[in-house]
């Protein structure tokens, strides 16, 4: 009996050690960034390794704000492209997934394979031809283009997850509503969507995080400063001769904090949706 207690507390200690290691591994880059953003340029170039800045200073944030008059515009741009595409992803993938999960029609398997393929193959393959097409159609350098590209990119994975979710909703519920005279749209809007709010939140979360942090697509399509998003703005702080590192770290912190908060808030919905495929 006594032996068992010893093993138990040893096990607990090991769990504690591993949990601390895990937290360190996950959080250290973020802590490094915040720490860099809170120091002055002078301290950036000194020779210490200290993680904690010697003199806390918000100067990098002030400089970032004062030197970049377009900062609010870039924030609004990012929020617009990310927010609208998230909404569109939720609506279009819910519609597509419902059709695929609950109906049998000609071309269904074909669409299903295209969804599997487009969510799996490297994006860079499509990026070059897409750039040429957008250039021909004079659609480059427009925020709405980027917004639609984000939407298209997140429809396949979101639809994939939602099909798995809709499959689990019993048909009886919908059939009963149909017998009561509910139309197809009525069934979807009044019966199916209300029980899918958590799953839709989860796919919205993945789309939001993906679009918010995107750099490659935005930097390929957006050229003029007025249409930039926050990630491209970091480019601007990296001059050919001098890089404003503390300001970059400040902007990085500003970009990361909203998605971290959103993520921690909604993470459980995502875990439930992703785990749904395995539970049976």
């Amino acid at each position, binding site marked *: 009996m006594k032996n068992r207690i010893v093993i138990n507390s040893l096990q607990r200690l090991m769990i504690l050690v591993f949990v601390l290691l895990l937290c360190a591994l996950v959080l250290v880059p973020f802590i490094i960034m915040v720490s*860099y953003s809170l120091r002055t340029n002078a301290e950036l170039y000194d020779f210490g390794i200290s993680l904690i800045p010697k003199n806390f200073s918000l100067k990098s944030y002030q400089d970032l704000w004062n030197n970049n008059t377009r900062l609010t515009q870039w924030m609004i741009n990012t929020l617009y492209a990310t927010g609208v595409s998230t909404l569109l992803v939720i609506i279009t993938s819910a519609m*597509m997934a419902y059709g695929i999960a609950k109906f049998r029609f000609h071309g269904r398997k074909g669409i299903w394979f295209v969804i599997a*393929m487009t969510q799996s193959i490297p994006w*860079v393959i499509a990026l070059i031809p897409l750039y040429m097409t957008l250039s021909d159609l004079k659609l480059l350098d427009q925020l709405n283009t980027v917004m639609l590209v984000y939407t298209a990119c997140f429809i396949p994975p979101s639809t994939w997850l939602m099909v798995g979710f809709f499959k689990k909703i019993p048909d009886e519920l919908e059939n009963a509503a149909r017998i009561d005279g509910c139309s197809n749209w009525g069934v979807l809007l009044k019966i199916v969507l209300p029980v899918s709010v958590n799953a839709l939140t989860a796919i919205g979360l993945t789309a939001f995080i993906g679009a918010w942090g995107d750099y490659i697509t935005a930097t390929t399509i957006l050229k003029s400063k007025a249409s930039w998003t926050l990630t491209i703005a970091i480019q601007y702080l990296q001059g050919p001769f001098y890089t404003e590192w503390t300001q970059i770290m400040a902007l990085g912190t500003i970009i990361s904090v909203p998605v971290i908060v959103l993520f921690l808030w909604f993470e459980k919905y995502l875990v439930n949706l992703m785990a749904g495929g395995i539970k049976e």
Partner: protein
Amino acid sequence: MRLSEKRKTQLFLVQLMLPGVLLVGFFLVYPIAKSFVMSVTNWHLLRAADGHYFVGFYNFREFFGLTYLKKTFTVTALFELVSVVGTIGGGMLIALLLNKKFWGRTIIRGISMLPWAIPAFVVCQIFLLSFNGDYGMLSKFLTALFGMSSSSYLATEVPAFIVVSFIHIWKAFPFVSVMLLAALSTVPGDLYEAASIDGANKWRQFFSITLPSISPTVVTLVIMQAMASLRTFDIVYLLTEGGPNYATNVIGNDIYVNGFKLFKMGMASAEGVVLFVISMFFVIPYFMREGKEIS
């Protein structure tokens, strides 16, 4: 005139599928199809005005004749291997840890998934600064630890590859550990009780109960991670652009550099076609395993 039930359902289905099909068709399927056409023309961004004509397999010959081609494929394969082993191994360790019951487990699970939420672009900026040879925090730390000379770690072949792989694994393991955690929760607990009565130790239990029970999920995750690391090139492009001396030049990065830095759109498309064929080796098994639930 009232529509028949069948017509109504058909109309409903068209309404459901149309927006998604149009968006995915225009922004994903059409460009992929176009890349096949571009790969056999002399498409060059700066010569767009001259028009483009058919050049046969010239682009493919140019690509397969690249002096650094062998290194690109070796680096890509090595990156695949390291990423799959790293994400599955790391994800498994963390899933096993989070499968234990301890105080604050839900919060730790949320925190452990954070790398997935922090934009790759921001992570790359952090590592670019931290590994800066002159004043980077991690650079100085590693130098103090191993006594290596403090020239930039990202400018030396092996360390650069390690850093790039590490960031990819760091970003990708949360997904793996969540999926494994879900799979672990389906393993019936009485199996372990029976095993410990029979005197099987923890290792034995892991290999004869846990692993067989979750092996379908592990196989799926291996395929998914192989595809994910094939997709990753932004980390490489942002940190090293494939250097030093092509040591981190995974094929995705090579396509982006050839297309958007060197403007050789034709050759980049040919490379894209090659990468498309390679990824099909993973996409088709993935579809066969995971796509069958709709039939």
